[in-house]
């Protein structure tokens, strides 16, 4: 059990997907303008990450043992169809949620965090439950980074920063500082 907890914590803060592995940077830079949208995007990501982890585990166990060279292709096909199915299901069962998620749902397909999760999980040989813990941790970490970034950006919008740094440059420097702060968590695991 503590093994699962470590996997979760490690994926969430120590090896945060966005701030130390650079996965999922597009939404991180793209939709981190407002806290509310950032939170929603994060939650949608957690959901898809968990489903992906399940599918990747099933694929690895039942199919890819016979044809390992099909890994990249089959993962991307499964993720794309998964997102499509989730989109249709949400639209059918909860139109309100569907409206709230809006464009973010289809965008998740091209989020490298999702494919990254499937590949990391395979490379590290995680089992079903380890994979699920990894997915939840990664999703929480992604949400945490998005919300932090959005809060900082809401503030910098209003502050008097040098004109030339406005836009992507400033966001990246702020992300660098956040990433430095997250390096502080690195000591957490060595205690285990």
């Amino acid at each position, binding site marked *: 059990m503590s093994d699962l907890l470590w996997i979760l914590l490690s994926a969430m803060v120590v090896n945060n997907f966005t701030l130390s592995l*650079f996965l999922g940077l597009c939404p991180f*830079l793209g939709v981190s303008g407002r806290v509310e949208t950032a939170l929603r995007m994060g939650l949608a990501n957690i959901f898809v990450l968990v489903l992906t982890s399940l599918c990747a585990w099933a694929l690895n166990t039942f199919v890819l043992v016979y044809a390992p060279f099909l890994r*990249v*292709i089959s993962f991307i096909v499964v993720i794309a169809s998964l997102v499509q199915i989730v989109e249709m299901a949400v639209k059918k069962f909860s139109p309100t949620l569907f409206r709230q998620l809006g464009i973010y749902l289809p965008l998740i397909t091209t989020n490298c965090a999702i494919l990254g999760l499937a*590949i990391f999980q395979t490379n590290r040989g995680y089992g079903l439950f380890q994979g699920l813990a990894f997915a939840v941790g990664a999703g929480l970490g992604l949400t945490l980074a998005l919300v932090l970034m959005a809060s900082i950006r809401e503030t910098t919008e209003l502050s008097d920063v040098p004109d030339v740094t406005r836009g992507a440059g400033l966001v990246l420097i702020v992300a660098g500082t956040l*990433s*430095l702060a997250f390096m502080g968590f690195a000591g957490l695991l060595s205690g285990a």
Partner: protein
Amino acid sequence: MKETTAREDLLRGIWRENPVLVQMLGLCPTLAVTNSVANSLAMGIATAFVLLGSSVLVASVKRLVPGEVRISAYVLIIATFVTVADMALEALAPGIHKALGAFIALIVVNCIILGRQEAFASKRPVGRAALDALGTGAGFVIALVLMGSVREVLGSGSFLGHPLFGAHYEPWVVMILPPGGFLTLGSILIALSWLRRRRAAAAGEARS
């Protein structure tokens, strides 16, 4: 779409519409693997190869692919070339393959590649698509090597593994760690924006 000359197709992606520095696409690999010049170069070349292969193939089969499923078809084509690149790198340079790890497979979701297919290769003849892919690929390699050079020189005090400053140099370790990636790219973007502004101001003065 505006008609362009072959020369323009080739040169556009290298600097004026550089995929990373101007269009801000493909940032994951740009930040993740540029902690040394060798890694940056390998990643750049692998991506450029995938881009060239998929552009040529997409441009050749564009009449056969129905519009509704074109994105899925492009993704499959890209994934195929990524698998080839992955295996080739594993066979030719196992050390670098290990250092790049999962990021080779993640070339599939590099938005530069899908972006070029959708915006260019699916509408143009094969030759032009190849030129565009070469230009954009070169632009990506340039951006990556620029990042890799800054980070390796400051972070390890070396270039392509050759030490530069002698034994007394205290490396800025943070530059080869994740925060260094963000800080380097942020600084490069701010410097470019400053240069652009200065040039615009100079042009404005010359006119008046």
